[in-house]
């Protein structure tokens, strides 16, 4: 069902869930690469802004991917309890 999220957030979350079975760092890197390869820059900017402002509905893996896109070093996994259950 629809979740009422902005499109870029919904899309980022949909990508993130596909990589949720991977090691977190590997998953975040792959999500970041996918967004880098396929997303128009304005979508990335909107996602960055969302993470920096509200951000609460952004999948942690997608959030880590945003960090990776900004600073292409290994993203740090969030605390286990805050990661989505898949």
């Amino acid at each position, binding site marked *: *069902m*629809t*979740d009422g999220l902005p*499109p*870029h957030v*919904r*899309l980022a979350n*949909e*990508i993130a*869930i*596909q990589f*949720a*079975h*991977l090691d977190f760092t590997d998953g975040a890197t792959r999500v970041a690469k*996918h967004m880098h*390869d*396929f*997303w*128009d*820059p*304005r*979508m990335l900017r*909107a996602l960055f802004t969302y993470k920096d402002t509200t951000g609460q509905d952004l999948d942690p893996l997608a959030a880590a991917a945003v960090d990776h896109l900004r600073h292409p070093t290994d993203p740090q996994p969030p605390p286990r309890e805050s990661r989505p259950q*898949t």
Partner: protein
Amino acid sequence: MSLLKEPDLGTPARKGDATVEVEIDGQSVVVPEGTSVMRAAALAGMDVPKLCATDSLEAFGSCRLCLVEIDGVKGTPASCTTPVRAGMAVRTQTPRLEKLRRGVMELYISDHPLDCLTCSANGDCELQDMSGVVGLREVRYGVGEGENHLDAPTDSSNPYFDFDASKCIVCSRCVRACDEVQGTFALTIEGRGFDSKVSPGGLDFLSSECVSCGACVQACPTATLEERSVVDLGMPTRSVITTCAYCGVGCSFKAELKGDELVRMVPYKDGGANEGHSCVKGRFAFGYATHPDRQLSPMVREKITDEWRQVSWEEAIQTVATRMRDIQERHGTGAIGGITSSRCTDEEVYVVQKMVRAAFGNNNVDTCARVCHSPTGYGLKQTFGTSAGTQDFKSVDDADVIVVIGANPTDAHPVFASRMKRRLRKGAKLIVMDPRRIGLVRSPHIEAAYHLPLRPGTNVAMVNAFAHVIVTEGLADEEFVASRCEDYEPWAEFIARPENSPEELEEITGVPAADVRAAARLYAAGPNSAIYYGLGVTEHSQGSTMVMGMANLAMVTGNIGRDGVGVNPLRGQNNVQGSCDMGSFPHELPGYRHVSDDNVRDIYEKLWGTPILPEPGLRIPNMFDAAIDGSFRALFVQGEDIAQSDPNTQHVHAALSAMELVVVQDLFLNETAKFAHVFLPGTSFLEKDGTFINAERRINRVRPVMKPKTGKHEWEIVCEIARAMGYPMHYDDTSQIMDEIALTTPTFSGVSFDLLDRVGSVQWPCNENAPLGTPIMHKETFVRGKGRFMPTNYVPTKERSTRKYPLILTTGRILSQYNVGAQTRRTANVTWHPEDTLEIHPHDAEVRGINDGDRVTLASRVGQTSLHARISDRMPVGVVYTTFHHPVTGANVVTTEHSDWATNCPEYKVTAVQVGLQTSKVDADKAQVAVPVAGS
């Protein structure tokens, strides 16, 4: 006369290396073993008279006209049914044979009207020809004397052809064509002896199981089965070989004309994709090209509420250019973009993406493949290294196991389906994965070994279960995997986990584990197993994952790189493959090369003399979102009706309404044109000059049958817009565009119009390594080197049935209609499908009080529409189905924003809905009755 008469050697060619040498009328000829005497004679230049024989059908031996004498053989055997033997000496012309043949012809003619001068087949009648060949000068029995069939009635029920029984010689060619070529078995010979007659199952043609493919008309040697257009207009006088503009099979046709009037489309025997066969759309449904609805003048309006105003080409082009530039000045370079069409030629598509990249200065170009096969592009590139199917169509002739996943070839790709059915009738096994019991599951002389009616949205679970069986039961082709692939171990570890077993996934897919195991074993056993798939794979939230899952299956069983195997997307539209190849995606330049690749950009920047952005642009759904948020303000739409075909209609309409400028280039004022400010009339396939690329990567020429009715080719208009925007873009003719494609795209470097005109067609890659193209890909190595196994974690779609929306809607096509129906609704094909209907299982109908034919409401969380119900046990309980050919039905009013995670391809195949009986007067008043645009 410049009609292209193709040679008919009488019986089909035989394959094989073994040959036989025989002597025909003193002339030696060497032919493959099993060849008929008739064919051998024809190859030696000695045509034997014939009526019941034609080389598209197996020999039948009924007309007795092809008798020959053979040394050492008693009597006069029929040359069509007699195979050659080594050392055989045959005589085809002797006084005895001539007398016998005249006697046979006398009998035929004694029961045939002698109205040759007024007959519709005059000049194109084999009976007439043979009468001349045998030297018939008299009919001793009289003509029409005694008992005869001259008053037999004509069946004109079919809108496209007549069946005039009075002219039938009961040669059975039509019956055999329906059986052998089409595979429908709709016709039979009814009665015995003198009472024998061709019958569509005791009914008229329209009421019968006939699918109007035209194979019987093609096979008929007389005027018995004749195109209505020939009856009305007379015999055509010239032919142009061109390519069909419907589905991705890409059939070659002879367009046959009188002057500039198209009389008929005849399937071309040398067509690489169809080899002389056709379907009801390509064969007959071309009337839309001259339909009165067609717009031939450019039009402009300030606001979409204004009336259209016809303007000159100059004004229309200048309006587009001026307003595009104005929007860019106010909102930025990236505020405009374009969409290319899979119905247009490669050359037309190429210039649009060039206009966007070079004149617009951004990468905001996408194509309608976004909403169909974009996951194919992604999935096959990730695993095999290139975004295309692996085989040619002929390959299916060598398949032992055929897996059809999420495709309905008999409706959507009928000419390929006929080829596939021929192979199935010869013994290949069939596995069908589809929620719906499609026609292939059980049809004449065909029954699927396994039909796995999985729940919509569970494809990846199913393909994982298949792979689990193969890996855990030791069925993998370890040698192939070791030598040809990489990343196998992590994938195998993942797929072997208990969570991927058929037993664990049974609750998700709804398919018994035992059936899944048995089907997987059958696929692995092959030895040649081939996967064919359609939009039932791609149009899901995990469409790309499923494509990779199928590629994994093919790799783990070694079913890649030879005839009879592979992973084969059945493309929806005529040029889906080509439009993708031509750089229509916002992240890729032609040839599937990413825009971030400096070396690739450098090629185009030097040639085009302008920088190209290294970052992807907006995809179609992103364009809609950006239009609503205000950052995307203008769109050029080439031949795609996004307002009807894209999901979540309300959202699309809001996006289109939000734009300052929508430019539509199309044949008709379609649904999208309601939101347009400039309308640029397009050309039909009969006017186009260029190429289409079909699902097997075959580059076919589209030759102009007539001049553009609008006065301009579409590519010329695009070039003029680019020039008006200040970017110089010019070609003298279409061949120069292909030359530029070849110059800049390695997989096309050997392609030219000259080559295509010389050899007919080629399949890319066509370059110095493969000067005549590549029918089978990945033979020695994969395009990316090693085939890559990709993990395919099953993630359920978010779109799930709920108490409020307890059913799942899935959508598809029907044989007689094509996509949003812009073409087929403007032909007599509406006879078969005047409106979209909702297929619903008897149980789901009963609990809702719905009877067959009732008008029902169809509602999802995003919209509601209404249509008539059709109760069908082809559907599983809990799943309903409709088509999207009629705008008034508005199937996409109910489809949602969910899409494939990798490509944004919409999830058309899974929408939670509720269906209810439409009872209230208010609802009834609002009911949209689907009325065809015209029935011409």
